[in-house]
């Protein structure tokens, strides 16, 4: 089932302006066949505008949208053949579940028998066969969400567009449906384009994530690549949490460079093929809190910072520490609770350590 039968989508320099306000600025992005792509960004980042432009509800000011290389920019939404799951689902309240799912087929004037068979198959896909004759308001949020999915997939759309599909659900249900959505994507093998502001959802669902801010595409890539090697401060901050360390490049070091931050010298190792910044240049490092360890006794690390615990919080799986260090300012660390070497306490003197390849140089975002 994994052979990709979806269609490829391409955005070319897509721009949308509302008067002087630029909602989407020159976004170029490719979505491969059968790929699950997530547009991730804070509210006002232009992600929904892009989705609505792909769906045909928003006419771009400039640029083009291509489906398998064919320009579909001027097509109205009803001619695009895309399935869409709306925020809040937009199920027709006066129709039963089966009638809702049958709607796209009725519009296409499919014969009754085929229509019924496909509705049954679609409801089967989302495990709602037993609810065919209910009205949407008689279903729970999660069930409504699955009806919306069945309705969007029943007519074999070229593309499935999802507008914050899980945002109306509570946390536990959201996690459940994330898994279902992922499994569904694997089963149907179509191209999915998802919009969300929830970074966890983006990380767990997507083959690829495109991060947007102020209408611009900041970085696109596989979830792991984005998380491990964020290119800018915004990406490092929005996708997960991060410490930021700013300093002056001291000079090259084996496999990387040394950075002077507030008088302390930090070792930074770069991946193969990346050249270190020039000596004397300013550089910004992103350091994930979970990569910072609490050193016990004589334990050593490539980078060490001494300080005192300002505050800590227990999260079940781990401790979140805020440590005031002598040279680096405040550093956040997350320790697995079950193997924390000490019991954290406010004011306690501690030594933090991390590997040279734990910190990643990032750029300041253009304002």
């Amino acid at each position, binding site marked *: 089932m994994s052979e990709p039968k979806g269609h490829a989508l391409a955005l070319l320099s897509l721009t949308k302006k509302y008067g002087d306000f630029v909602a989407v600025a020159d976004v170029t992005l490719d979505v491969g066949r059968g790929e699950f792509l997530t547009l991730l960004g804070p509210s006002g980042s232009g992600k929904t505008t892009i989705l609505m432009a792909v*769906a*045909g*509800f928003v006419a771009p000011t400039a640029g083009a949208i291509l489906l398998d290389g064919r320009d579909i920019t001027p097509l*109205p*939404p*009803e*001619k*695009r*053949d*895309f*399935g*869409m799951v*709306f*925020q*809040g689902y*937009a199920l*027709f*309240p*006066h129709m039963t579940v089966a009638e809702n799912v049958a*709607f*796209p087929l*009725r*519009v*296409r004037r499919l014969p009754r028998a085929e229509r019924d068979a496909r509705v049954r198959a679609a409801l089967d896909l989302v495990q709602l066969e037993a609810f065919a004759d209910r009205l949407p*308001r008689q279903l729970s949020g999660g069930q409504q969400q699955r009806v919306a999915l069945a*309705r*969007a997939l029943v*007519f074999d759309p070229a593309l499935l567009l999802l507008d914050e599909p899980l945002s109306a659900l509570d946390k536990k249900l959201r996690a459940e449906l994330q898994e279902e959505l992922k499994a569904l994507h694997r089963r149907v093998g179509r191209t999915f384009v998802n919009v969300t502001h929830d970074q966890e959802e983006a990380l767990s669902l997507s083959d690829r994530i495109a991060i947007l801010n102020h209408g611009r595409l900041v970085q696109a890539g596989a979830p792991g690549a984005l998380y491990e090697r964020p290119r800018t401060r915004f990406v490092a901050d929005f996708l997960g949490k991060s410490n930021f360390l700013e300093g002056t490049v001291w000079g090259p070091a084996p496999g990387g460079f040394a950075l002077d931050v507030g008088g302390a010298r930090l070792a930074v190792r770069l991946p193969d093929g990346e050249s270190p910044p020039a000596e004397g240049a300013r550089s910004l490092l992103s350091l994930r809190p979970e990569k910072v360890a609490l050193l016990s006794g004589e334990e050593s690390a490539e980078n060490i910072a001494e300080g005192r615990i300002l505050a800590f919080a227990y999260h079940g799986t781990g401790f979140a520490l805020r440590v005031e260090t002598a040279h680096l300012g405040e550093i956040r660390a997350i320790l697995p609770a079950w193997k924390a070497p000490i019991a954290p306490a406010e004011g306690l003197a501690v030594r933090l350590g991390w590997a040279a390849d734990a910190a990643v140089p990032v750029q300041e975002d253009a304002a």
Partner: protein
Amino acid sequence: MDGAYRSGPAGRFLAWSTALYLVLPILIVLPVALTDQRFLSLPYERISLQHFRTVLTSPEWLGSIWQSFTIALASTALSVVAGTLCAIGCWRISRRATEMVRVLMLLPLIIPSIVYAIGLYRYFGALDLLDRFLGVVIAHGVTGIPYVVITVSTALAAFDPRLEQAARGMGASLSQTLRWVILPRIAPGIFSGAIFAFIHSWDELVMVLFIASRDVFTLPRRIWDGINENLDPAMAAVAVLLILFTLLLLMADLALRRRSQGR
């Protein structure tokens, strides 16, 4: 309403007397309609249904009832189609200009009907629509539009615009979206408007006095003439029938609303 203020005896007295003040003039026609006398009066010796019999057997009264009914039906159809399309159009375009259009559509409700009637009289003469079935239908239909515009606009305000987007996104044309998604959702509003437009035409007198004379002789017109010429209690009987009919329509409207709220 738990926790609401409870009304004192003075408040309750005031409320009941207001209600009675509103309802009594309507209720008074009931005994008058049942009088055993040959003039407008309360029953002297016994209750009699003779005036109902007169009304229901007289070709004049029956003719007027039928004429009023067909005029009301036709003008309601006109009001509903024009009013619904106008409301949907304004809702879809929804600019400042459409607000103006909506206010314009309410004009027949705001302008005194006698002013309207004089205007109609002036140009219906030129169009040869005076004393014609079609003329009265047009006059009533146009003045019934505001009721439909108001009720349908209210229904549309509660309509989730994403449903329209969803329908179009799934490939529905404008007419399919209209028939299968928008109209079923706003049907209660349309019915409400239709009922009001019907009642409006059914008891309209002023315009009919101006634009109709002999061929078109609606029920309100016949009651009016009856009052002017002789004080026949048959009019009270007609009035009772009218009240019952109107009550029936209003109850239908209420039932429809309750059903749509249940959804």
